[in-house]
Structures are given as structure tokens and as C-alpha cells.
């Protein structure tokens, strides 16, 4: 057991938790109306609590238990069975690994919150998120990281382009489509009530992402350092390219735009972070800022789907970009880890990545659809009534007001 590696993963675990609480809660909270800011934060807290308990009880086992036919983990690790202070995972204690992974199981369903803000019933949020962690997240996590079939095929997903961002993005789109649009969408919505809160949240996400991608190296070494380098540069490039597009299109860059570009860059570099160098991060971030920007427009203006805080456009599209481009960017020529070579020629790798992408999209979309249908039956419709939506979820769903200044 290596105490240095352990120290870094312990710190990374704290950093990834920081991403959801308060990072994501603030990022999303600032983007909604002031009458729903608390409900968004509450959704993040509720999901964090539910996902944590489920991960302990069965999620970890489904993800990292002994492989069952490449599709799912067995029940061997239910309730962290056998995970004591001595059992190891590589050079670190398994309990540290299990906790580090728990923070991923927290943030992934929390990312989906952006799809249904301001109009969903809180019980539905809990129900959908709980089922989603077990039926969507855990299996995919097993495929990719738990020595499941995709891992066997040599898919490259360093920190969760498939497992976290694509799965969350796709599911967000499905839920948003099924839930329906906010009243006033798209023409008469209120602007974000607190962009500064959103920026603060984005900043915490940026910082926490060091643990997310750097920690995924599961060691405190040059690989972790390189992952952080690629990650950070992608964030900077994402902010730059998104802002550039806004500048050209609207004559001025916005804070919300820069913050969104940061997240787009981070989501996009995630699957590649440990395989590429800073150059790879630069390319991924720059591409993400532009592509995700237009993806937002496509979803909202073309598809007319009210994925309110653009979870699909930013995380789904970003994750997909990273999952595909890593096949090329991992090239040693670009200071990449060169892993791509070991795992066959670039095109072969691209094939694997594409297959994985398709599989994840299909699985996530399918099960999310089923989950929402079922939840809708249980909760008598997952949407609150018109009046409650108008008055805002803070007061109607939680009996609180965001600001009494």
C-alpha cells in the first residue's frame, strides 16, 4: 500500500464531493429563477444522500463486484462486504477506492438535475435518480471500469466520458423530452437569477475536477499530473472558445458563457484526460467550446426540447466528442500517454469507442425512458401543476424562500 497514492485519492474524494456540493448546486442554482433556486439545491442534496446510500448498499457491488458475463457486477460486495481497512485496490485501500467512486455515483445523477429544474416533483427526482443509479449508472460503470465487456474490448474512458457525462447527458435529454417544457419556453423565460452564483459553482467544479480526472489515475505520480494538465488546459480553452463564439455572434462575451465553456471543456477532456497531454487538452477544450455552444441551440431551437440547463448539449455532446477524439489525441506525438498504440491502431480504437458510445446511448436512453414512465405512474405524474410552477418550487415544494434581504 502506498501512503502517497492514498493521500492523493483521499484528497481527490473530497474534491469530487466538492464538485456536487456545493459546486453543482451553485452552478445550477444560479441559472434558474430566484423562486426555484432552493429546489435545485435541494435536488442536489437529495440525490447526494440517496446515491451515497445506494452505492453502499448495492451500487458498488453492481459496478465492481465479480463480473457476471461482462454486463454487471455480482452481489459479492453488497454493503461493502469484504471491504475492510486492509483490503487493497492497486496501491490504495479498497475502501478509499470505493469512496472515491461513490463521489462519481453522486455527481452523475446530479448532473441530470439541469434537465428538469423548476417543474418536477421532488419525490419524482428521488425516485428517478435512485433507479437511475442502479439501472443505468452501475451497469455502465461496470462495463467500462469494472472489467465489463467494454473494458475487455479496450475502450478508453479515463475518468468518465461514457460513464458520467454521456450517460447523464443522454438521460437528461430523454427526461426533458418526457417531462415537457417550462411555461414560457422558449420565448418568455426569465434570465438566470444569479450569474455570480453560477460562476462560483463553475469555479468549484473546475477545482474539483482536478480530483475527478487527476484522481482517476489512482496514484500520485506523473500520470496524475499530466491528467490535471490536460484537464486544466481544456477548461481554459473551453472558456476561451465559447467566449470567442459569443463575442463574434453577440458582440460581447458573458460570464455565464465563459463558465459554461469551462464545464464543456472539462466534460470533453474527461474521457481523454489520462491518455493525452496538454496539447490534447487544448484541442478538446477548444472544440468543446464551439460545438457545445451550437449544440445548445440545436436542442432548444431545433428539437425544441427544454433540457433547461443544457445537460445534453454540454455533457452529452462534450462527453461524446472526448470519447471519439481520444482515439487520435492519445498519440504520443501529442505528448499523449501513447496508450492508444497498445490498444491497437487509431481507427480500430475509434471503432471501439464508437461502439461503446452507441451502447451507452442506447442503454441510458432506454432505461431512462422506462424509469420515467414507471416513476410517473408511482408519483401520479412527475410534473407539478401550473400554479406551483409559476409560484416556484421553493415555496410550493419545500416551503422556503430563497432570499429575504
Amino acid at each position, binding site marked *: 500500500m502506498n501512503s502517497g497514492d492514498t493521500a492523493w485519492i483521499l484528497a481527490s474524494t473530497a474534491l469530487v464531493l466538492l464538485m456536487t456540493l456545493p459546486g453543482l448546486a451553485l452552478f445550477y442554482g444560479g441559472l434558474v429563477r430566484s423562486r426555484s433556486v432552493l429546489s435545485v439545491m435541494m435536488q442536489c442534496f437529495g440525490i447526494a444522500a440517496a446515491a451515497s446510500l445506494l452505492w453502499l448498499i448495492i451500487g458498488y457491488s453492481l459496478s465492481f463486484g465479480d463480473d457476471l458475463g461482462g454486463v454487471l457486477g455480482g452481489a459479492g460486495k453488497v454493503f461493502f462486504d469484504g471491504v475492510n481497512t486492509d483490503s487493497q485496490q492497486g496501491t490504495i485501500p479498497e475502501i478509499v477506492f470505493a469512496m472515491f467512486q461513490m463521489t462519481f455515483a453522486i455527481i452523475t445523477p446530479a448532473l441530470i438535475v439541469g434537465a428538469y429544474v423548476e417543474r418536477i416533483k421532488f419525490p419524482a427526482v428521488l425516485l428517478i435518480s435512485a433507479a437511475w443509479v442502479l439501472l443505468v449508472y452501475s451497469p455502465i460503470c461496470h462495463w467500462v471500469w469494472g472489467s465489463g465487456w467494454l473494458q475487455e474490448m479496450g475502450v478508453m474512458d479515463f475518468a468518465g466520458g461514457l460513464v458520467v457525462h454521456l450517460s447523464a447527458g443522454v438521460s437528461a435529454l430523454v427526461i426533458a423530452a418526457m417531462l415537457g417544457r417550462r411555461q414560457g419556453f422558449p420565448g418568455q423565460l426569465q434570465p438566470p437569477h444569479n450569474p455570480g452564483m453560477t460562476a462560483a459553482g463553475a469555479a468549484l467544479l473546475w477545482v474539483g475536477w482536478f480530483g475527478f480526472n487527476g484522481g482517476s489515475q489512482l496514484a500520485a505520480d506523473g500520470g496524475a499530473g499530466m491528467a490535471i494538465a490536460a484537464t486544466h488546459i481544456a477548461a481554459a480553452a473551453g472558456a476561451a472558445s465559447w467566449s470567442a463564439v459569443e463575442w463574434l455572434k453577440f458582440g460581447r462575451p458573458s460570464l455565464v458563457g465563459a463558465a*459554461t465553456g469551462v464545464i464543456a471543456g472539462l466534460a470533453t477532456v474527461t474521457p481523454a484526460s489520462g491518455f493525452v497531454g496538454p496539447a490534447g487538452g487544448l484541442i478538446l477544450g477548444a472544440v468543446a467550446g464551439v460545438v457545445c455552444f451550437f449544440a445548445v441551440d440545436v436542442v432548444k431551437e431545433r428539437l425544441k426540447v427544454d433540457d433547461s440547463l443544457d445537460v445534453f448539449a454540454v455533457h452529452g455532446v462534450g462527453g461524446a466528442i472526448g470519447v471519439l477524439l481520444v482515439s487520435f489525441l492519445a498519440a504520443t506525438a501529442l505528448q499523449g500517454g501513447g496508450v492508444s498504440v497498445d490498444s491497437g491502431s487509431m481507427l480500430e480504437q475509434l471503432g471501439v469507442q464508437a461502439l461503446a458510445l452507441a451502447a451507452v446511448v442506447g442503454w441510458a436512453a432506454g432505461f431512462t425512458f422506462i424509469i420515467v414512465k414507471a416513476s410517473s405512474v408511482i408519483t401520479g405524474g412527475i410534473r407539478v401543476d401550473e400554479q406551483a410552477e409559476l409560484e416556484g418550487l421553493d415555496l410550493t415544494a419545500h416551503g422556503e424562500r430563497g432570499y429575504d434581504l
Partner: protein
Amino acid sequence: MAMKMVAARIQTHRLDPVYAALLEVGVSSVTAIEAKGYGEMFGHTEVYRGAEYQVAFMQLVKIEAIVDESLVEQTVAALREASSTDPERRSRVWVHDLLLGDPAGESS
């Protein structure tokens, strides 16, 4: 003696100069209320993530000064002049009649 309420809507950043002007004409007690001004020449567009949000109003302040009849004219004038550096953009000022308030109030 009869009191009147002189009121106008001014731009937020003119609040200090306006109050100074009112003090000069002897009006020291004034109420300022934040308001949203809807008007032809107003409003702006905010863009978030590519989507345009029409914000039809601009933030401004409603000023109310309750003064004695005899002071109305100066008050109105002072308010108007101080409401904008640009004579073209000066705010309009309105005068409300008041019935007797409480004598105590009067006397104070």
C-alpha cells in the same frame, strides 16, 4: 395649510444629485422607491447560452416628496433639472393632491 406630493421617476444614478437639489430648495424629507420602468425607449436584451431574453424595463427610482403648496413649484423644477444632465432626457414630474393628514403630522 395644504400639502402636495411631488413625484417623478428618475434614473438610479441620478438619485444623489436629485436629493441634493431638493435639499437646496428646502425639501429634506424624501422617499425613494426602487421601480422598474417600462417605456418605449427602454428595455434591453440579455443573451444567455445563445438564447435572447427580452428585458423590457430598466431599473429606476420613484421619488416622492410631500411638500407644502407654496414649495411645489420649486420642488418640481428642482426635481426636473436634477433628473438628467441632458435636458432632452429629463423626467416628467407629477403632483398629487393630498387631503389633510394627521394634524400631528402637519405640525411636525
